[in-house]
């Protein structure tokens, strides 16, 4: 999915070089403190994050918005519940 049509991120979490479950843990921490509706982008180069961020959103009721291309890794955009 391209970044086109995705809402811009309010917060970017740089998880480059950090293996799963770190990107999901960082997203969970951010989701705890951020108001509902905030758009968060998790930037990760771990292949597991592309599977785990959407799965985490499904389990926790956050809205997974899609992937945005980055120079390094992938931006995984989420609207926190």
């Amino acid at each position: 999915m391209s970044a086109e049509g995705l809402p811009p991120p309010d917060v970017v979490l740089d998880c480059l070089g950090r293996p799963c479950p770190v990107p999901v843990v960082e997203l969970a921490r951010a989701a705890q403190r951020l108001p509902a509706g905030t758009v968060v982008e998790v930037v990760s180069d771990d292949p597991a994050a592309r599977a785990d961020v959407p799965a985490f959103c499904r389990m926790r009721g956050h809205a997974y918005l899609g992937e945005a291309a980055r120079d390094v890794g992938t931006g995984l955009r989420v609207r926190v519940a």
Partner: protein
Amino acid sequence: MPHAAPAAGPAPVLLDAAAGVPMGPQARAALLAALDDGWADPARLHGAGRRARQLLDGAREALADGLGVRPDELVLAPGGCAAARWAVQGTRLARRRAGPRVVHSAVEHSCVLHAVGDDGTAVPVDRLGRVDPAAFAAALEGGAALACLTAGSHEVGTRQPVAEVAGACAAAGVPLHVDAAQAVPREPVPAGWSLLTADARTWGGPASVGLLAVRTGTRWRSPLPGTAREEGVDLPAVLAAAVGLQAAQALGPAEAARQRGLVDRVRARVAAEVPDVEVVGDPVDRLPHVVTFSCLYAEGEALLTALDRRGFRVSSGSSCTADTLEPSHVLVAMGVLTHGNVRVSVHAGTTADDVDRFLAVLPDAVAEVRRAAGVEGL
């Protein structure tokens, strides 16, 4: 080489039966006897050779019988992975005009995926890990050399709609290969396949024996050079595989039902007693012996280590536990969590007490891993 002191406490419990189980007493006895009695080349015409031929014919008959095929439909391969590879390669060789494309589910074993290579079309699975027969049928349009569908995978155990997909393959004129490595010897495989593969290691046979059944009338050619149909047949190992299969199948449906009950218990208690866990796969329409679940925020490798320290040997589909550092393609295809993954598979030697003791230590092991990572209360 220095020897480690024997560990104190109860013997470790194997809950990774999908990868293979230790050899049982009957298979072991057959193996040892065959080292003396069946060492010769069955192609030789002297007494020892004729004896080896006799033993090989008997073992082939027993293995064929175990799979429900004729002896001349059975090809002995040097391992389960080789059997799956030969199924793919041999069908492509014999069906060159159909082109190299192979249609397969997204949750096939990596042995199958590696054999298929780049000329494959993966049919997606749902959240339970099952293909949609209509989507599979649609993927067959335009023709294919072969279709591959596991009866149920070693990772998730969800049964695949083999009969429906076999119908679609027959209608499209495409042979179907069913990977039955986990179904055999626990349950019958639905009819309709053209090629079927199994792995002796999963029933306590040697790792050097894989079975490929090719139904009469199926276009298949051995991928071996020259005119050889088989190669490197290890007769003592084949005898042990045959005796092991008979022993495993003699336990019958009652043993499959017992294993199903053990897995039911794991599924229910893990979901109830481990916080932030997702037990995945079909809870009912599944192979008897496999269950996998993922623990949020936990690292798979740390979980395996924490459980191993407590005396339980399990497996994981998390990327940190894989040689490739890629997460399990099965879990990814299902859209479920890949980190913190634990795979439990039981066998005839697994007792209810083993499972209960595992379930008793599991919540603490998960909590320990989460505590060490500082992710509690998220």
